[in-house]
Each structure stands twice: as C-alpha cells, then as structure tokens.
C-alpha cells in the first residue's frame, strides 16, 4: 500500500485540495491511502470515511465530488454539512473534485450542486452526527435521548460537566460506517435530515473561504502547476475548419531554442519546448502545409439565419400540442407573428484552456480546472487505453466561462502529449484558439405565432425553434473531444442534438411547440462545435418566447406584467413544485422592487437624445423561478443601449448563503447583458473570425448598470415547511435577460429588436427604419 510519504517522494507536487486544509496531517488511513502514487480506485461512496474526516483537535474536512465555479458552492457545502453535523462552521474545510480523494458526484453542471448533490452531503453529515451520539452514549452510559449536542461537543443533559468533543470521540480514527443507497445521489445512513428551520448556518452569509487567497495572490491555480522536468506545449490549429494536414516542415523550428518535439497525429499538431515562450514562438513559426476542404464547412455568420431557415432539419421532435392552435388562430380577432434570431456565442474564458499532465510512475495525473473532473478521468483513460485506476484528475481552481469549455480538450491534450513525450507536459491555448475554437452556445432561429380574441385574451401560442446545436458532443468523451476528432479517433456518428421549448407555466388554451435541429455542413473538427453555455438553450428560447409574450401584450394594449399575471392566474392548478404560485410571487416581487407603473408598452416616445424604457421577462429552470426587469437608456444618435438598472426577483427555494447567491445572480445577469448587447461569434466561409477581445467584444466596466437589485423570494405556499427544498440557482437568471432588455428597448422606442446582439449599429439601423 502506498503512503502519503511515498507520494511526496515520487511526485513533488502535493495534492492541492489537501494543502488548502491547513488543519494538520493526521488524516485517517483511508484518506492517506488516497494520496499515494496510484493506483487510484474510485472512492467508495458507501463509506462514511470517504465523506467526512474529524480530527483530534476537533476540526473537520468534508470531501465532496463537486467543483466550485467561483460561485461559493464550497462555502455552501460547508454550511449545510456543518449544520447537519452540528459542528462549528469555522472549524471545517472542504476538499472538492479530485478523483482519487472525493466520491464521484460528477463535478459541476446543471446548477444542481445543492438541488441534487446537497442531499447526500446533508445525509452523510447527519449520519456522522448520529454515530458520534452513539459513541458518546456508550462512553457516558446515557441514552442518546439524554445527550445534548452543540458545536461539535456532546454533553449529558442531566450533568453538563460530562462532555466530550467529536475530536475526542473519533479524531484520528475511522468511522468504519457503511452507508446505503443504490447510487451516490441516494447515499444515506440511518439518520434523518434536520428540519431546515433549525439549521443555524443555513440562511447566513459566511464569507467565501476561497476569496482571500484570490485577492492576495497566494492561491495555486491549475494554471500554476509546475513539477520538475515539466515541458511546455502549444497547439497548432488548422487555419480553416476541416483542413487536412499535408506535411510539416520540422526544420522550420527544430533549431529554435528549447525545442523538444513536434507531436503530430492526423490533423492534430503541437510543439513541445522547454520553456513556455519558446513553445509559443515555435508553434507560431512551425510551417505546416494544410489542404482546405472542398466544400465550405459553414455559411458566413451574415448568412447564418438564411442557411438555418432553408436547411432540412436533421431532427424534428414531435411537437407538444395543447388544444388546436390552428383553429384558434383562424377564428381570432388579431394574429401576431414574429421571428427571432440568436447567433452562436462563445464561452470565451478569460484564461485560455490549460492543463498539466504528469506520466510519472506509469500513472497519469492531470491537473485541471475542468468542472467535470471525473468525466475527464474516465475519458482520458479510454482515449489512451489505460486502466481507469491509473488515471486521476487533481481539480484546482481556474478561470470560469460557465459551461463546458475547452478545459475538457486541454486535459485530454496534456494527457496525450505527456504520454507521447514521456514527461510532464503543460499545455495552454492561445487567445485566438480560445475565442475561435472553444465550444459555442448554439444559434437559434425561432418562429412564433399568437392570437388574441376580441377582448385581448391570448387564445393561441405557437413556437417553432430551430437550433444549430447539433449537440453532437457529450463531454469528456474519448471519441468526441477535439483532440480525438483531430487525431481521427472520433466516433462515426454524432448525437442527434436538441433544441429547447419555453418553460413558463402560462395557461394558454391552444399551444403548439415544435423543435428542430439543423446541422452545419461540417460536424467534426469545427470551431462551431457546440457546448453547454449557461443554461444551455434557455436564453435563446426565452428570448423568443418572452419577447413574443411582450409583443402580444402590446397588441392587446395591456401592461406587460398584467398580461403575464393574467396568464398565470387563469388556472388555479399547480404542480408539486408550486411553480405557478412561485411565478406569480416573483413577478409581483420584481414589480414591487422596481416600483413598476402599470401601463402598456411602448411609452410615449420622448423627443430627447436619450430614450428610456423598462421591460420584464420571467423564466423557470428546473424548479427555480425568476423575474427580471431591465431599465434601459437608448441613445437615439449612436444606437447605444445602456442597461441602467436591473431588478431580479429570484426563488430557488431554501437559500443557503444569501450574499453569495446575490453575487452569483448579479454576475449571471451581467453575463447575459453582455450576450444581449455585444456577443456574437462571427465567421467567414472557412474559419471563425472572432479571435480576440476586439473581434469578440463583451461587456466592460463602462457598461455596468447604475443599480442592481436582487430580491430573494420564497414563494412556496407553505414557506416555513421543515423540508423546504434548496433548488439550483446558477443559471436560471441567464434565461430572461435578453428578453427583458429587448422589451425595455421596445418600451423606450417602440422598436422591436428580434436579432441578438443589440449592438449600436443594429439598434441605430432599426431606429432609422422606424423613423425614431
């Protein structure tokens, strides 16, 4: 059996997750074993010791299989687990997402960190508390019912002088308690969860523990990993999508300083050098002869929507139908039609994709910020044909871009290069690679049709979406990642893909929602490959549906909020998550916070240079409901839109850390403002031409709203119930922002923008066309 000491001798780089604990090294054997030099079997989720370590000095570390994308989930995990354990929050630490020391909770994704994964965390902590109470009961000869527990100290109720700390009971030893459950999400012991009203840390806002080291420069990030003998690599990407490699002139670089090797397989090319700047220079200097594909890999971005309109779908889902929309539209007093266009948008991380892989000891250790570290481990093992227990991923903090980014690709590339070279290799993408080749949020084209009766009631709503999301990639798969595509190891057929439907719960008697997927001509080895970008389809579908609801409200000469509330109160039925009741609550809360004046849009158009308006949109994602109001100023002379004020009312059930969640909501809204106003991946017929921050503009300090108000709402009909669920929070707010802004622009100007982004020139042209 390997020990921690062996690991330190053979690797030279300590597992960072544990180095941050700073709470002593007296780990139980189980955790020590996991630190060894391999093999690295899966951590057993049915062992309590895999989740919680309590030390003699009465400190504890929680081991969770999640990753924190800079939203404070690690802090929230500590809060809920401390609460269930009855242990002082500030005596805890949290280790996340490294495949050999934490159970496979899948890393991050889907905004489900608390909604799903929070429950096994709470249950194992509750079980540890139960076991500790049993131990204390034996020690004192007092039944558990005669014991009192607070802050990690158990005392005898009848004689408070008799007390013992958790550390004294279990510190330095293993629980040796087997848990049950068919899968990790179902992991449980015998203990029951607490009544959420009795939780002390839940609902408080301890400061995020990760922030001080991010502010003083002391945090070691994945991008900082360095081991003795480590080499640096840079990729050489095809100059146009689908280009085939003809030849490489290695003599163009092999005399350059620090040159080690050109690695090539299929269309994948990388240069490995001693130093980082040497690898950058050599990758730029390498002469490669490429052959462009015979047919264009995709249309130009100017022609994207014309292409999507005429393309035959590769997939059409059976439409979801309620009533008979055709008949209702035929008999309607007023019919409204519209079409909405949302382009490809990039993740565009501030720090390009990177990873370091160390092949020492015939194992492979990958240091990565990939949000799905377990998937990376599994995929790399399969890609390189290695036993899974010889590969591990050490998860470390990194730049975030809110979805499945090229961090996946870099992890595979580092592993591939390390195996090819036989030494530790660090790879990082350059800015042009990141902006052009990182995965994209899919473009959408949505047609809508709606009908009002003579009283202005909405009687029919048709929605027909085409996504250019072939969604052929799952993530971290050995036969779909970019290096697999470029080296020829990809699978034969892509996945079918998907589009998206609106998720509101309006009561509309006749509805039809259809979804189609259209494919770009080139599916593989393309910089337009799609990957989940914050939601991943919701901002697109919600932009169309919530803009269109606004258009219908305007056609009915109704106030946009009144119109929505009417659609939500038409029905009295609700689902088990009370989404209808909670939708009404957030819309009302947003209106109150904004001090909404009830009137139809548009307002009377002003005569000055600056036109002001406000718009609302609302969205559901999974069980979380939000309403957002944007106030905009539109500059009539320049076309510039400034989002001056944002109000969000947000109901994600039980809130663990209000201040952290407020910031996540603020940042999510601003990310979406950036996508609404500026972001578009542009391409000519052969390559992506958005390659840096000038050609892919985003929101800047100059654009920040004057005020942002976030109202946390608990719209549950029984708001004080003991089992109030904690739903996901990260992504829902990204859905309604685009529509809220478009609706505000309409309110200000009377002009409806149906094509994202609302850059100055597009807005100005629309104003001119409408003579505003």
């Amino acid at each position, binding site marked *: 059996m390997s020990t921690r000491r062996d690991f330190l001798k053979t690797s030279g780089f300590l597992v960072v997750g544990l180095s941050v604990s700073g709470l002593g090294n007296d780990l139980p054997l189980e955790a020590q074993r996991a630190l060894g030099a391999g093999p690295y079997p899966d951590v057993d989720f049915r062992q309590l010791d895999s989740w919680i370590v309590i030390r003699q000095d009465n400190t504890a570390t929680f081991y969770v299989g999640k990753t924190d994308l800079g*939203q404070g989930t690690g802090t929230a995990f500590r809060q809920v687990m401390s609460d269930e354990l009855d242990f002082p929050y500030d005596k805890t630490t949290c280790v996340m997402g490294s495949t050999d020391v934490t159970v496979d909770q899948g890393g991050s994704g889907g905004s489900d960190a608390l909604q799903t994964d929070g429950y096994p965390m709470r249950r194992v902590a509750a079980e540890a508390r139960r076991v500790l109470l049993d131990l204390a009961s034996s020690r004192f000869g007092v039944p558990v019912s005669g014991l009192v527990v607070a802050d990690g100290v158990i005392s005898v109720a009848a004689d408070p002088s008799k007390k013992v700390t958790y550390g004294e009971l279990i510190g330095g030893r293993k629980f040796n308690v087997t848990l049950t459950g068919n899968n990790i999400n179902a992991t449980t012991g015998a203990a029951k969860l607490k009544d959420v009203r009795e939780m002390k840390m839940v609902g408080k*806002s301890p400061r995020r523990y990760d922030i001080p080291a991010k502010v003083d420069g002391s945090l070691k990030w994945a991008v900082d990993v360095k081991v003795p003998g480590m080499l640096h690599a840079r990729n050489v990407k095809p100059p146009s999508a689908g280009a085939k490699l003809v030849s490489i002139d290695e003599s163009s670089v092999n005399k350059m*300083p620090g040159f080690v090797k050109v690695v090539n397989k299929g269309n994948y090319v990388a240069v490995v050098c001693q130093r980082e700047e040497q690898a950058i220079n050599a990758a730029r200097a390498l002469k490669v002869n490429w052959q462009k594909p015979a047919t264009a890999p995709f249309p130009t971005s100017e022609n994207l929507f014309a292409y999507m309109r005429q393309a035959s779908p590769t997939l059409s889902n059976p439409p979801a139908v309620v009533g008979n929309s055709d008949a209702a539209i035929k008999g309607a007093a007023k019919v409204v039609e519209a079409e909405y266009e949302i382009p490809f948008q990039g993740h565009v991380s*501030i720090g390009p994709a990177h990873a370091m892989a160390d092949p020492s000891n015939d194992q492979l250790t990958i240091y990565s910020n990939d949000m799905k570290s377990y998937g990376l481990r599994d995929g790399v093992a399969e890609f390189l044909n290695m036993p899974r227990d010889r590969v591990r991923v050490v998860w470390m903090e990194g*730049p975030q871009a809110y979805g499945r980014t090229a961090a996946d690709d870099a992890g595979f590339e580092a592993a591939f290069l390390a195996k090819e070279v036989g030494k530790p290799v660090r790879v990082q993408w350059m800015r042009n690679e990141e902006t052009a080749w990182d995965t994209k949020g899919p473009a959408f084209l949505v047609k809508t049709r709606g009908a009002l009766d003579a009283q202005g009631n909405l009687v029919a709503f048709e929605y027909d979406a085409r996504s250019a999301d072939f969604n052929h990639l799952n993530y971290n798969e050995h036969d779909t990642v970019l290096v697999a595509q470029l080296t020829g190891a990809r699978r034969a057929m892509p996945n079918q893909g998907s589009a998206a439907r609106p998720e509101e719960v309006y009561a509309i008697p006749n509805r039809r929602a259809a979804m189609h997927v259209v494919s770009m001509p080139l599916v593989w080895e393309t910089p337009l490959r799609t990957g989940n970008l914050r939601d991943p389809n919701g901002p697109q579908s919600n932009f169309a549906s919530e803009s269109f609801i606004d258009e219908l409200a305007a056609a009915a000469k109704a106030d946009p909020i009144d119109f929505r509330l009417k659609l939500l109160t038409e029905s009295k039925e609700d689902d088990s998550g009370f989404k209808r009741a909670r939708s009404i609550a957030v819309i009302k809360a947003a209106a109150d916070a904004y001090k909404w004046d009830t009137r139809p849009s548009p307002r009377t158009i002003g005569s000055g240079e600056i036109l002001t308006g406000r718009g609302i949109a609302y969205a559901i994602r999974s069980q979380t409901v939000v309403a957002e109001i944007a106030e905009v100023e539109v500059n009539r002379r320049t076309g510039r839109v400034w989002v001056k004020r944002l109000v969000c009312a947000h109901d994600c059930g039980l809130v663990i850390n209000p201040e952290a969640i407020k910031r996540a909501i603020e940042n999510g809204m*601003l990310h979406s403002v950036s996508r609404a106003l500026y972001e578009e991946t542009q391409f000519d017929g052969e390559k992506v031409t958005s390659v840096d*921050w000038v050609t892919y503009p985003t929101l800047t300090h100059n654009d920040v709203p004057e005020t942002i108000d976030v109202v946390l709402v608990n719209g549950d009909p029984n708001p004080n119930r003991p089992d109030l669920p904690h739903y996901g929070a990260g992504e829902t707010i990204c859905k309604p922002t685009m529509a809220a802004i478009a609706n505000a622009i309409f309110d200000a100007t009377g002009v409806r923008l149906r094509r994202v982004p609302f850059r100055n020139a597009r807005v100005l042209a629309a104003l001119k066309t409408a003579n505003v």
Partner: protein
Amino acid sequence: MANITLRVNGTSRTVDVDPATPLLYVLRNDLDLHGPRFGCGLGQCGACTVLVKNEAVRSCIRPVSSVAGAEITTLEGLAKDGKLHPLQQAWIDEQVPACGFCQNGQILTAKALLDKNPTPTDAQIRQGMANTLCRCMTYYRIQAAIKRAVKATSTASARSESEVIA
C-alpha cells in the same frame, strides 16, 4: 539568453532568459509569482497586469529587458507588513471575486488609478477600469469595492460595516 536583473516586490532577482521574453513568463515561470496570469497575450484584457514604477503595465506584451532595474510590484507584493492593501481588503469586504482569475488585473489597475486620483468619480472609475475585462462579470462589485477602498482610505474611521458576517 542574457542575464537580466529585475527589482520585484522590493527584491532583486536575476534571470537568464531571452531578453525579448515577455515579462509575464519570467514572473510566472522563473520567479514563481503567479499573481499575473496569461489572458490574451495581446494587452487587451489586463489579467497579466503588474505595476512598473506605479503604472499598470500589461506584462504579456512587455519584453523583460525593457523593465530591467525598474521597480515592479505584483499582486503578491501589494500587502505591506502583513497587512492587506485597502483595495484588497475592500475586495474581501465586498466579496468581489467569482472565479477570481482576472482580479489581479482589476486590483492592480484600480491601485494605479487611485494612486493618480485618490477620489475618482463614478465616471472616472468606469473609464479608468474600462480596458480590464472580467468574464464572470463582477464589474458591479469591483466598482463598489473601489469606492469602498476610497472611503476607507480617505476617512480614518470610515471602515463601513460589511453586510456579510465574518
């Protein structure tokens, strides 16, 4: 390759590198100073910012030879005598960072801004920070933190109550 002596965070350090090497890689890879980070290599985003003679400089496009002998401060060198700079403290009090990757550039750009203009208007803050990008979009809190630091610095007892508990 050539021997170049740098003054970084108050200490002299000599490195043997190609003089054309961007300062960023020397700081990160030779001197193990990881505050500055690679973001674009084009001087567009600011993630690599360091202070050279109190000016915010993009180290990804600054040849190391051009700053030989000049006083360089990285994020690691901003705290003095174990005490965080008021901007760093404001960043914590305001709970600014999300992922935190760009915050090096945000803090150091703000430092250079306040050194020149200790009491900037909102518009001056926006303008002064405009070329320093954040992909998590923490801009709203960054601006709040700058104002908080200004307040904390300009009035001795003005350390405003944090709305988050310690």
